[in-house]
């Protein structure tokens, strides 16, 4: 997309789009943060400053439990689905088999099934046949089904151009398959795995429909947010959202400082790009 004649002009045009996208994505976050400090949360402008939301949060509320549950759900789903997806993509791209079309169809199918159906079907399975109440583990598994296809497609985006002869070369030099994976394949594809991890975490952290039906009364962030819409928005909700954002942005700021001083590379090597 180097459409402009000079590289710096191109950088400015593209950079403008990126800045606009960032503003577009972050304005609601700003709104939430401002509203969490405001006395009137529904129409917070002009702002009358107060700590009420955060104080109420400290006293302990359902939002603590909801946040914890959502985090466990997100991490569990991300770990399991990324692992399964890595195995799946590697197998599909590396080996020839006459069963491949069928298995590939099975792997891709969850994408086309709506969240609501996944939630309801698991509910039927749990409630009618297994007769277990809503719990976090079955919610994790239901979310993994949805997240698996996402993770698989994202990993495949980078992996389909992978040069498998590198693996062969490693085998020639005597490395077993497992060692080959950890010392050759993994260092080359870790961005894809990280991308899949983040995407699946976000997907399950925010998921309303699947988790709603499989969890029953166990609260998660989306379901308490949904509930608050019916019973009135509490300032604590905004407060915890603002805190989560602040924590993550702090991590990013730390990463930025480390990157700037050159301490950590995260895969970047000086002079490798243009």
């Amino acid at each position, binding site marked *: 997309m180097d*459409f402009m004649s000079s590289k710096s002009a191109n950088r400015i045009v593209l950079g403008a789009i990126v800045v606009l996208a960032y503003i577009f994505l972050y304005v609601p976050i700003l709104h939430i943060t401002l509203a969490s400090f405001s006395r009137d949360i529904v129409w917070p402008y002009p702002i009358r400053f107060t700590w009420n939301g955060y104080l109420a949060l400290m006293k302990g509320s359902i939002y603590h439990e909801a946040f914890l549950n959502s985090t466990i759900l997100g991490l569990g789903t991300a770990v399991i689905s990324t692992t399964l997806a890595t195995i*799946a993509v590697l197998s599909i791209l590396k*080996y020839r088999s006459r069963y491949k079309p069928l*298995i590939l169809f099975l792997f891709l199918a969850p994408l086309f099934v709506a969240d*609501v159906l996944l939630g309801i079907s698991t509910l039927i399975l749990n409630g009618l046949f297994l007769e277990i109440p809503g719990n976090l583990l079955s919610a994790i598994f239901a979310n993994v089904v949805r997240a698996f296809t*996402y993770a698989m497609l994202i990993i495949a985006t980078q992996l389909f151009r992978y040069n498998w002869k590198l693996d062969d070369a490693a085998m020639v030099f005597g490395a077993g398959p497992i060692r080959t994976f950890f010392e050759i394949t993994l260092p080359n594809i870790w961005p894809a795995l990280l991308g899949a991890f983040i995407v699946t975490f976000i997907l399950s952290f925010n998921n309303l429909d699947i988790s709603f039906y499989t969890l029953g009364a166990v609260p998660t962030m989306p379901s308490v*947010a949904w509930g608050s819409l019916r019973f009135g928005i509490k300032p604590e909700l905004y407060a915890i*959202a603002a805190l989560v954002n602040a924590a*993550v942005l702090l991590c990013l700021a730390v990463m930025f400082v480390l990157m700037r001083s050159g301490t950590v590379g995260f895969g970047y090597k000086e002079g490798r790009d243009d």
Partner: protein
Amino acid sequence: MSGWIVQRWLKLDQNQRFLLLTAPVTLFLILFFVVPLIAILVVSFWRTESYQLIVDWNIDNYIDVLTEPSYRVFLLRSIVTALIVSVTCVALAWPIAYFVIRYGGRYKLLLVLGLAVPFLTGIVLRVIALQGVLGPIGLLNLGLMKIGIEPIQALMYTKTATAVGLIYLYLPFVTTAIYLSLLNFNFRLLDAAKVFGAGNFRAFWEITWPLNWVGTVIGFALTFVPSLASAVTPRFLGGANGTLFGLAMGSQFSATGTWSLGAAMGVVLFFVSGITLFTISRIVNLKRSGFTGVGSRD
């Protein structure tokens, strides 16, 4: 170490290795995906009467879904909205991903992660916040009124608002897909093209675009299918005329209690999304997209 495992592994042929590796994944999916879904398929052929599921095998539900005009309208509206949203997402994600890869330098990862951060707030909160900013008395319109311009009505409770909300939700997925695809793209190819006399636009269209086609299609699919089935966003932003198929289907399970109709709608949705994506993927020419081929043997 575990020498005998490696020995046994090397004796297997490609077919067996494939089956062995994918076995745990297949088992997991069959247990938690296929079995529950068969239950839903079965339910779609039954009937619900006054909130009770009655085992009465019929295809009335499917006839309802496919012939009733309101469902047709919802379905068409959903398809059009999903297409617009996906195309816009791809159009927006490409410059962003390109900028990050080309000019991001050592901060590439940071820029991409920064785009993903807003998503930890959750869909409900962000939609509320979007209302707060774009709504009739929201930030944007208040600012416009201060300057003396009329507030923009089209930003709330319209199909445009639903589209904006959906773009808002699915942009990071497409960006990640295209980012990963561009990560391994060899930009020296563009220099080679310029040496042979191609202009900027031609270089992009004939080199960058086809070689990253797979990433684009995957990003498109990851946006299109969930947008088609979306229920929360149109509920908040769509207004009275903005009902989408996913919303109608969801209400079958909550409001009206007609599970079998909802199940039938879900099956129809499955096939519609599947057929659309299958058609699109047919356009992809794998060789042209730089596919290094399946398997490590020639």
